[in-house]
C-alpha cells in the first residue's frame, strides 16, 4: 500500500499541488493540504475500489480538504480585511514569481471568483478533466458542472476586464 501511495505521489502530487494553489493561493498551505491529501488517501485506501481513476479519486480528496480549509479560513479573512481595510494580497513566494505578467493577472482574477466558479474552471479548463470526472471530483451532477462552467467563464472575463487586464491580443 505504501508503494502505491508513493507511486501516486510521484505521478500526481504536482498537479494536485497546483490545483490547491490555484484554489487557495497560499503556497505553504498548499503544500500542507497536498500532504494531507496523500495521508488521507493512505488512511482511506481500502475505500478506493477502482470505480474512478486514482487521479480523479485523489483530486476528490484534495477538493474536499480545500473546501474545508476555505470554509474555515473565510471568517479570519473577513476579520483581517475589516481591520486592515484592504484585501490581503497573498504575495507569491520567490519560487513561483517566474510567472509572466498576464498569468499573474489571471491568477489574481481567479482569486476574486467564487469558489465553485474557480474550481470548475480549474478542473475543466486547466486540468482538462471530463465533465463526468469533474462531476465525480466535485460530487455534483453533470448538468450542474455544465451550468456552473457556463456562468463561471463570463464571470472570469468580467473580473479580468474589471481589473483592466484584458488586452486586445487575448480577445
Amino acid at each position, binding site marked *: *500500500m*505504501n*508503494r502505491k*501511495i*508513493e507511486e501516486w*505521489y510521484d505521478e500526481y*502530487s*504536482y498537479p494536485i*499541488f*497546483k490545483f490547491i*494553489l*490555484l484554489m487557495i493561493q497560499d503556497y505553504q498551505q498548499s*503544500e500542507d493540504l*497536498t*500532504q494531507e491529501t*496523500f*495521508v488521507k488517501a*493512505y*488512511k482511506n485506501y481500502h475505500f478506493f475500489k477502482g470505480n474512478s481513476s486514482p487521479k480523479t479519486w485523489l483530486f476528490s480528496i484534495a477538493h474536499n480538504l480545500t473546501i474545508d480549509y476555505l470554509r474555515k479560513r473565510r471568517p479570519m479573512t473577513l476579520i483581517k480585511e475589516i481591520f486592515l481595510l484592504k484585501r490581503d494580497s497573498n504575495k507569491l513566494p520567490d*519560487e*513561483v514569481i*517566474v*510567472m*509572466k505578467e*498576464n*498569468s499573474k493577472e*489571471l*491568477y489574481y482574477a481567479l482569486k476574486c471568483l467564487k469558489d465553485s466558479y474557480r474550481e470548475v*474552471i480549474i478542473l475543466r*479548463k*486547466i*486540468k482538462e478533466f471530463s465533465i463526468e470526472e469533474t462531476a465525480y471530483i466535485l460530487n455534483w451532477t453533470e448538468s450542474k458542472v455544465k451550468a456552473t462552467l457556463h456562468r463561471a*467563464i463570463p464571470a*472570469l*472575463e468580467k473580473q479580468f476586464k474589471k481589473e483592466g487586464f*484584458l488586452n486586445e491580443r*487575448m*480577445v
Partner: protein
Amino acid sequence: MKEWYEEPLKSLDSQILWPESRQKILKQSIFRDIYKTQNGRRGRGLLMYYSSIVAVVAILFIGFQFLQKPEDSTVSNHTSNASSVVSEPLEMVRYVNGVSSVLLTPESTIPIDLKGTVSGIIEKGSYWQGDKYTPVYVYYPFKDGNIQIHTTPNEKGEINIIETEIVGREKMWISNRYAELMTDAPQIIIQTKRYVYYISGDNVGKEQVIDVAKQIKFNNNK
C-alpha cells in the same frame, strides 16, 4: 475557434513552479505521518492482542483451579505455554551474536535495542510486519523524535551511484554498501542489488541517522 481564456489558463498552470527539493521534503513528511499512523494502529492492535492473551490465560488459570488438584503441574505448563505465545513473533527476530535483532530482509538484521549504542534513543525499538514490498518496519524512539527503517526490493537489481554532485545529497558507504544521505530530511538510502533500505529521521540529527544505519548487519553477499 479558441476562446480567449484557453491559452492564458494553460500557460498559468505551466508557470507555477514547485521545486523538486520541496516535493521530496513533502514526500518524506507524508511517509513520516504514515509511519506514525501505522505505529498507532499497531499499538492499538498489540493492546487488543495482549489483553486477549491475558484474558485467556486468566480463564485457563481459574478453570484449572476448579478442575485440578493444587499439586497438579499442568497449570504451570499451560501458563508457560501461553506466555511463550506472548513473546515476539519468532519469524521476525533472529539472535545475531547473542543479540536479539529484527530480520530486515533475508540479507540483513538490526539489533532491537540500540539504547546506549546510538545516542538519544530512549527505549527499545518496535517493529511490525508490512506487506510483500515492505516486509518490515522498525521504529526507534528518541525524546522528541524518532528514526524509522523500512526496505523495498531493488526491482532493477542495480546500484545507481550518483555521478554528479547534487545539492542536499551526499554519497557514502555504510558497511561497505553504497548509500546516499539526504541532508535536509535527514534520510539515508542504502542500496544493495536485492534491496533498498530507507533510514529516515524525524526531529533528529543526521549523525544519529548515520549511527543507526551503521548498526544494520549484512550477510557477506552484497
